[in-house]
């Protein structure tokens, strides 16, 4: 599904070049759950942004679902993003003035769903993330874990094939964090590809593969051995 080859990202600020990513090679297959780990400032988030078609890169090849990203126009990238990618953030990024169900509904507006379909789909998703009883609450009335559930709901409403999560448990306590991780891995079980940036090896243990990055380079890749039940 995702193929990166020799991908390089350089930031230029006041004449100083910073190599955020240097010749990164990475493949993610459909249905995989990959964790990206590494110290602060190593380029994890930059990588995630590039994969999410939010940021550009300088060199190398990036193929997303058989499409060479460097050949896509902005409009095509926007279309690809809103149809195929869902995002989950560390700080949830819910919109304060919208209720739970409105926040979840938001992506469908930009996909041109009818009112009927939107309503139907929101009900399904509310059920899936277990926030039906809080549908008319505002984000500031919810706990962090609940907010993140809403954010996950928003990420999956358009049935994306890929979910990008940037430290989804970073602002949560361990109980709430586990709930979110359970939710994400359930999505993965249902076939959604997941790429997650994380600091926590506990969270990473939910994934199938861990990619370690340091100073913009992939230093190791290893499979996670799941405990058998």
């Amino acid at each position, binding site marked *: 599904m995702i193929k990166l080859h020799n991908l390089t990202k350089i930031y230029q600020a006041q004449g100083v070049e910073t190599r955020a990513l240097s010749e990164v090679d990475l493949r993610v297959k459909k249905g995989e759950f990959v964790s990206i780990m590494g110290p602060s400032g190593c380029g994890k988030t930059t990588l995630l942004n590039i994969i999410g078609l939010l940021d550009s890169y300088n060199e190398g090849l990036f193929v997303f679902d058989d499409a060479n990203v460097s050949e896509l126009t902005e409009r095509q990238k926007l279309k690809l993003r809103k149809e195929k990618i869902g995002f989950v953030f560390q700080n949830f990024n819910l919109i304060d003035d919208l209720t739970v169900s409105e926040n979840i509904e*938001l992506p469908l507006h930009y996909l041109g769903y009818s009112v009927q379909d939107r309503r139907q789909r929101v009900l399904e998703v509310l059920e899936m993330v277990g926030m039906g009883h809080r549908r008319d609450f505002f984000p500031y009335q919810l706990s962090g874990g609940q907010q993140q559930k809403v954010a996950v709901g928003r990420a999956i409403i358009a049935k994306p094939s890929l979910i990008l999560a940037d430290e989804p448990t970073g602002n949560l306590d361990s109980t709430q964090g586990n709930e979110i991780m359970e939710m994400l891995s359930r999505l993965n079980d249902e076939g959604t590809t997941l790429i997650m940036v994380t600091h926590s090896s506990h969270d990473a243990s939910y994934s199938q593969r861990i990619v370690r990055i340091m100073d913009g380079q992939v230093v190791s890749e290893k499979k996670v051995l799941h405990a058998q039940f």
Partner: protein
Amino acid sequence: MPSSKFRFALRSLYRQKLYTLLNLGGLAIGLAVAITVSIYLNAEFNFDKHWPNYENIYRVNSSFQLNGTEEEYGGSGAGLASLMKEFYPEVEEATHFFSFENSVYFHSDSVKGYENELLVADANFFKVFNCHFLEGEVDSSLTAERSIVISESFARKYFGNKSALGQTLNTSNFEYQVRGVFEDIPDNTHHNFNAVISEPRVASDTLSLAVSLWQVSHYTFLKVPSALEAQNVEANFDQFFNRYMAGMADAVQAEYRVKLQQISDIHFNTNPGFDAIGGSLIYVYGFAGIGLLVLVLAIINYVNMATARSLRRIREAAMRKVLGASEGDIQLMILVESTILTLLALLLAFALVEIGTKVLPLTNAIDKDLQLNFKRDAYLWWLPLVLSIFVGIISGLYPALSLSKVSPLDAFSNKKGLQRQNNIPRKLLVGFQVAVSVTVVITAFFMYQQMDFIKNRNLGFNPNDVILITAQDTNSVMHLQEIRDNIAQSDYVESVAMGASVTGRGAYRGIFEAETEANKGFQRHSLDFLRVSRDYLKTMQIDLLQGRSFLMEDEQDSSFNYAIVNQSLVEFMGWEQPIGKKLNTSFNERGEAMLNAVVVGVAEDFNAHSLHTKVAPLVLLLSKERSRVLHVKVYPNNIYVALDDLERRWTSMVPNAPFQFSFLSRDLLELYTEEMRQSRLILYLTIIAIFISILGFVGLASFTTGLRTREIGIRRLLGAGRLQMVNIVFKELLWVMLVGVLIAVPLAIYITQLWLANFAFQTEIKAPVIVGTAVITLLIGYGIVALHSLAIAKKNSVDSWRGA
């Protein structure tokens, strides 16, 4: 989507109550002011346009040529209307009327009261002025003597809900029968009226008609098919003149022309001689200007605050982009939201106007109906709407453009607002705002001062403690001399004099033959004159410069007439030896002067007219008859006791006549109602302008301190004192205010000078006022900044430097 957008907009408003209050409130006030001013302007510019076929209704103004000078009057002679209708086939209808100078006491069976705005008109009045009759017949309403046609509200006052038709209304002397009731006419009517009384029928012979055509006593109105016919009437007046007026022309040695003025043109082009009080374009433009400024201030304010506020939504915009919103989606969202907000402000503005005009003494203060009336002011349906949408788009434009360009990557960062460099355009706008409001304040101050100056100007006579008693009926007029003598004996009275009219409220105008200095015979001039009794100069405290006052013997001397002239007349005639000069007036149809007077004294100039006009040459004729008004100067300490005594003496002399009094100083203020009304309006507008500017500054201050919250927190952590912190923020805003003030001061002086140029007597432009305004402006600015920075400093500094 639109409905959800509306819901979201409302919701975010509710969550930011203070911001909403300041921002929407400010805009709503600005809009409310603009709406109110527009109602006022609309009324001013549509004077008399409510009459059906107003473009075909013309007033006949008179123009006299005498000794090479031309004088114009808004009025004309009695009888002109019917003669013109007869003479000119193109005149469809013609009417004449005059208006009562003072209020008249009316009583029905159960109700009594004083009424203003009464006209006495001929039977054709309502054929020219098409009032909507609720009761009675237009054609027959004024044909019978002692008929009265009254307005709907007049009828309601005296007869309640009963039919007024056929009822009787009494004045102190007469009984009138109500022959019609018309729907109230709008206030913006130049010759306004609440009731019309049929004119008494007098047998008119050709001779008296010939004389009356030369005397300005009535207003004549014609109805013609079109402007072309009006021009014809004016152009062919020679034939009319030759037929009816030429005979007297030789006798008075004057020429006479008519000038036709369309009724809707009268209000702003009133005639200095003989006219009702009109409007002033200077003031109207002044209001329009200040109203517009207030609106512009409010809009700038709103745009400023909305922009500043929207920058807090960078993360939201970024997030929406992550979720698939295009630039267009974001722009549309912001524009829709901001337009919804301004429409809300508009609703609020209408509510403010509605409540404001009812609760505030506005209508009273400026004596104009400013209430919302969508039927009368049809533009209110669309103009404010268009304006609000425009403001909505303007205020949404910058946020829409900048937010739509936000990178979706910002969703990941913790940035909460834009960085400081984006502050400059906003500072410029607020600088402009400071400049505008300082200009308005300084200008308004001097306008107010000028009004005050005019009001308190020395008139040349002293109106204080002068009680006026007006004789209303023939009986009291006949006995006025004896009443005067009786009142003069009162211990409370310092001095008393009779006059044919109220001093200071205008003079009569007549043609005089005045003896020249070098024995070169007589010159004819049209001069102002007053008819007064002895003790007049003493009562009014007018200085006598030469000669003597009128004496008791003069009053008893039936063989000769006496005159006192003012200093201006002496200069006008070039008299070196004014005492003993002869003045003749009151010519009959053979051109013979019926009144021959000799000058016995010269008085200091005083303002016989309102201060709108300069002092002109004036003759005081000793009056032996026709006096109507007693001027009673009382000792200042016991005015109310004095009044009781005056009433007792009046009633003992003429028991059946009502004792009607007023205070001269108050009567004179009525001459300046328009000015007082205007200065009050200017005051209100200024207060609002200041208020809105303060709002704008609060917005900027909160924005600036908001941006520097983190810095303030860190400084506080490092031990900075409170005052130091206020100063840090204030320094950044100080130059904004200084630039504003520096622009404002010369601008204000320029505007003030421009405005003052319209007055003969001008107040001074004083530096302390200007410096004071500037200093107060800076102090207010400092106060606002201080409040904001201190509030932030008080908060936990750990929160602020972490930028949370």
